């Protein structure tokens, strides 16, 4: 086992990793930017090293200073948390070069799964369903034939595109023909390439993901799913839960097996998550893999009783997966409280927290780095706290979340707390009738209706 780990992150996840290390008897080194001198992770760790000025590119993304910090402190491993350098294959390679264990998968796995096209190809090869699509669409005839085969509605995408640019939804052949030349010229202008990609459009799908743990000896374990459909239009998740409401045991099993098959095919090691879209008719499609620990990992911890961060560290140390079977118990919800203003299209806010009272009591866990008097810097992710509840069933987990949100007092910055309180009362949410359309529709009703 490692004797000392450097935590290359900030905020609640740095605190979470430091806590796991402390429980494992591992010394910790925090790295911090000049804006985080008084941050919780800086104080909780055994040692702390300033790595740069406030902007993330000069500090939490400053590879040279982070590696140098690991060397001067004699750290044997680096935990990258999520975000920042967690999915940077170059960083994982540099760690390897300096004989520092990167707590995550191998650099080549990060690279392969980080490339969406390659990840899709690997999934197809592993027999994992992906959203049906046709590439290299040049002519109108090719497009109409492909769309008929896929079934309307379809998405027209620029083959060279990314980040949602140039995507159009068409519901009929007439619409397809009308939009085709426009999409082609747009793609030409934006990417210098007019080639188009047609993809089946899933209407109101659910976002369901599978938590994976894999050791370096070929053992892979799926720890059930998480329902993460409550997302805004920027794909920011607000509420996650485990298990996914209404998912049949057969469907759960099939999705989990697919995820394990893909991980086996790519020789995955460490903790990771395979994300799927599940259509209304129950079909599921792989969309991407996150080769790191995720923000919403606590809901899985609550229902499985497994500390994912500690497991991830053990696996990185070369230990064998000791868990053979996972027993699910009860239901867990997580609300992500962020310093954002839902009234202003989730504009981030910064400032000093003038008053803070955290909820507690049975079945309530709060993962956070904030405290009264803490200054929320404007430079980083606006996540303030994760409120996690656990109950015997979904109703109890919801009741506990409503209570926890009522108990939560935070003043000084705009937060998503009132929005969460309203979401937890919404009939569709309570019924578990969820899809990625839920939150955008809820917001449209609230703010335009």
């Amino acid at each position, binding site marked *: 086992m490692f004797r000392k780990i450097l935590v290359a992150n900030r905020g609640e996840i740095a605190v979470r990793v430091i806590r796991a290390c402390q429980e494992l008897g591992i010394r910790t080194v925090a790295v911090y930017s*000049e804006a985080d001198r008084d941050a919780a992770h800086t104080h909780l760790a055994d040692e702390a090293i300033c*790595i740069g000025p406030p902007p993330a590119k000069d500090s939490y993304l400053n590879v*040279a*200073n982070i590696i140098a*910090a690991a060397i001067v402190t004699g750290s044997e491993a680096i935990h990258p948390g999520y975000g920042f350098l967690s999915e940077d294959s170059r960083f994982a390679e540099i760690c390897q070069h300096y004989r520092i264990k990167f707590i995550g998968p191998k650099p080549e796995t990060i690279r392969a799964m980080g490339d969406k096209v390659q990840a899709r190809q690997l999934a197809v090869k592993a027999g994992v369903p992906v959203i049906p699509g046709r590439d290299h669409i040049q002519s109108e005839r090719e497009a109409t034939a492909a769309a008929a085969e896929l079934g309307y509605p379809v998405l027209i995408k620029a083959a060279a595109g990314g980040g949602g640019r140039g995507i159009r939804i068409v519901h009929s052949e007439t619409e397809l023909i009308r939009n085709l030349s426009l999409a082609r010229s747009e793609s030409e202008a934006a990417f210098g390439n007019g080639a188009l990609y047609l993809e089946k459009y899933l209407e109101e799908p659910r976002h369901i993901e599978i938590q994976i743990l894999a050791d370096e000896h070929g053992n892979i374990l799926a720890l059930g799913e998480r329902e993460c459909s409550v997302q805004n239009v920027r794909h920011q998740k607000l509420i996650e839960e485990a298990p996914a409401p209404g998912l049949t045991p057969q469907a759960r099993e099939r999705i989990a097996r697919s995820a394990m098959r893909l991980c086996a095919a790519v020789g995955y090691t460490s903790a990771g998550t395979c994300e799927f879209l599940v259509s209304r008719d129950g079909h599921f499609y792989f969309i991407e893999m996150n080769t790191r620990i995720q923000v919403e990992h606590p809901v899985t911890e609550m229902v499985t009783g497994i500390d994912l961060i500690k497991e991830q560290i053990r696996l990185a140390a070369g230990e064998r997966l000791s868990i053979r079977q996972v027993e699910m118990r009860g239901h867990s919800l997580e609300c992500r409280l962020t310093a954002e203003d839902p009234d202003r299209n989730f504009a981030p806010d910064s400032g000093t927290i003038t008053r803070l009272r955290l909820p507690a009591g049975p079945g309530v866990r709060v993962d956070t780095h904030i405290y009264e008097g803490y200054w929320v810097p404007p430079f980083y992710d606006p996540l303030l706290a994760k409120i996690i509840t656990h109950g015997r069933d979904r109703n109890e987990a919801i009741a506990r979340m409503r209570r926890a949100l009522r108990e939560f007092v935070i003043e000084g910055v705009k937060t998503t707390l009132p929005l969460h309180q309203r979401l937890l009362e919404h009939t569709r949410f309570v019924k578990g009738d969820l899809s990625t359309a839920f939150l955008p529709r809820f917001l449209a009703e609230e703010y335009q209706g």
Partner: protein
Amino acid sequence: MDLLQELVKIVKDSGIGELTVRVGDWRVTIRKHSLVPPPTGAGAAGKVEERSPAPTVAEEKTSRTVPVKSGWVGIVKRSLDGKGLVRVGDTVRKGQTICWVDSLGITNEVRAPENGRIVEILVEDGQPVEYGQVVMSLEVETSESQ
């Protein structure tokens, strides 16, 4: 400035020859200039000094302390191949390399931000430093005649 005038007055009116006031990074030294040059060096050692009774000129000499910080995380090198070692009291010029920080095999130069005199060295050779850590303090003088 009011404070400075006040301090000059205190020095003028008192029997003291020199007064140094330090607030944070700022340091002000007010010295009386006498016609008799002050005793210096070994010759003055052990002698009981007699203060000149009346100063003829009063000059404010202000100086401030400028911290010199490391821009890297790494290991300090006070000299490179036996050269470039600076000591307390040394006068350095703006841009002069005053120590090095070795980071991942790259030797980064820490340079004096201004002309001045080294008044404090806060790191040892071979010591690890973090970003922004003060490695030396420089006294930078500015003088104004009254």
